[in-house]
């Protein structure tokens, strides 16, 4: 597995396989999600791929009404908004992802701190579908 380079395209190849993969610095032990080839803390390049459990908590979010082209293509619109947020894992790593299973009509009911689990979704890109990273409340 360590022959796979620590690039964005490999990260998304893993996402397509329903795996949430980051990189683990063998020198200082820091974990990176998304993965990085070079450790910004200790400046070493001894990384190993590591699979994340996929459970974390919501630390910030929004419900987007004015969507970018890619999300319009995926079927969202001003009257069909979606939630996106920042998810923090137990080890401190954070990532941005779409948040499913919350009430986008009543964003004031969405609570920061709720436990989330990873969910890999298929999103239309106009020509076909791509697998995207998302999270939903646990349970």
């Amino acid at each position: 597995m360590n022959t796979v380079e620590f690039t964005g395209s490999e990260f998304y190849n893993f996402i397509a396989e329903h795996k949430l993969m980051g990189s683990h610095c063998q020198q200082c032990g820091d974990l990176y999600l998304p993965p990085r080839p070079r450790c910004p803390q200790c400046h070493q390049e001894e990384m190993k791929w590591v699979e994340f459990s996929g459970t974390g908590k919501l630390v910030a979010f929004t419900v987007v009404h004015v969507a970018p082209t890619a999300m319009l293509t995926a079927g969202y619109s001003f009257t069909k908004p979606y939630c996106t947020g920042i998810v923090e894992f137990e080890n401190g790593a954070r990532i941005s992802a779409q948040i499913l299973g919350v009430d986008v009509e009543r964003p004031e009911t969405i609570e920061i701190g709720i436990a989330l689990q990873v969910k890999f979704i298929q999103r239309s890109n106009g020509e076909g579908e791509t697998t995207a990273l998302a999270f939903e409340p646990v349970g």
Partner: protein
Amino acid sequence: MKQRKLGRGVAVVGAGMSNFGAFKGKSTRDLFVEAFREMLASVDKGLDQEAIEALYIGNYSSDLFEGQGHTAPIMADWIGLTPRPATRIEDACASSGVAIRQGIIAIASGLYDMVLVGGIEKMTDLPTAEVTDTLGTAADTLYEVPAGFTFPGLYAAMATAYMERYGATPETFMKVGLKNHENGALNEKAQFGKRIADIMAQKKDRAIKKGYPEPTWQNEMDFLHDRRANPTIAWPLRLYDCSPVSDGAATILLVSEELAHNFTDTPLYIIGSGQASDGATHDRPTLTGLPAARRAAQMAYQMAEVKPSDIKVAEVHDCFTIAEIMATEDLDFFAPGEGWKAAEDGTTARSGPRPINSSGGLKSKGHPVGASGVGQVIEIWKQLRGTAGERQIPGDINLGLTHNVGGTGQTCAVHIFERR
């Protein structure tokens, strides 16, 4: 952080801007000529433009906005300064704040005695979704944009983190917008140039004329809570929490300190400059402030040897209302978690003890992104020289600060100006 000093002093001796707004049929070069014309007229003792040695032009994305790359030489050409070196600087919405810093460095190094610093952007030719996409390229297109984040969305996410931690509400943000519209109503260059109350009255009149039911807003907050009049862009941020899509240009003339009095008896000395960078929004230790802004501010204060409490007037990067609140904390005007209270109780109003964005800010004045950093200096130039007209802040306004953010804080440039 090691205290840094400039190799030699640098002063602003001229400043001008185009109107900010939506100008069909005008490209960045046309707006730049307007800004340059006003800058020339602002030099008290006159300027032979042949003395300008180089140009530093902030421009975020003419490539995507108007299909024009390589803009700096065009600006030089259009004002008749070819073949001088003309350099474009791109750091998203902080492009021209960073261009100022590059101009300062060029003069402080001794390479030049006089440089023109400018900022340009032409955003209104594109439809909304494409503007959203283009602004989105200032975020991380590999890891933030695929999550569905937009620019307002990222600031909205910071707003939810801020509300959760400190107790601010969406109404707090609305009050920032109200204040900046109050200020912008007194700025003849502003895109809106209207108070929210004026906008309400206008909409009521229009509804009556068209025979629609008359809106029932009782007051401005009522209007701002109306989902139709003030729709949600990215919750909790609504339309009136967001700076507009704008066209505009601004320019300032920088000279070495020893030359300043050849051009004016009241130059503004740039006594502090700071700049910092940061990673993607999700990668930061905090979501309730911008670490790069805090660091850039510390660098600028340290170089200037002034305290936050010494600053009399500040133009901060209110691309969204939440951004102004975080800025006032990152600049140490208020402790973390206190900025929203200052926004609610009038402390940051033009007549308050800590006036913020007397120009109307990006919210009301407009936010042609690459021009905003220099645009902020235009207000400081006026306030410190006592020429801000109706919106002049009373008293001895001798120290001013600009805070210009790129992206969601991947870049921040802070400058401190002094009138002696």
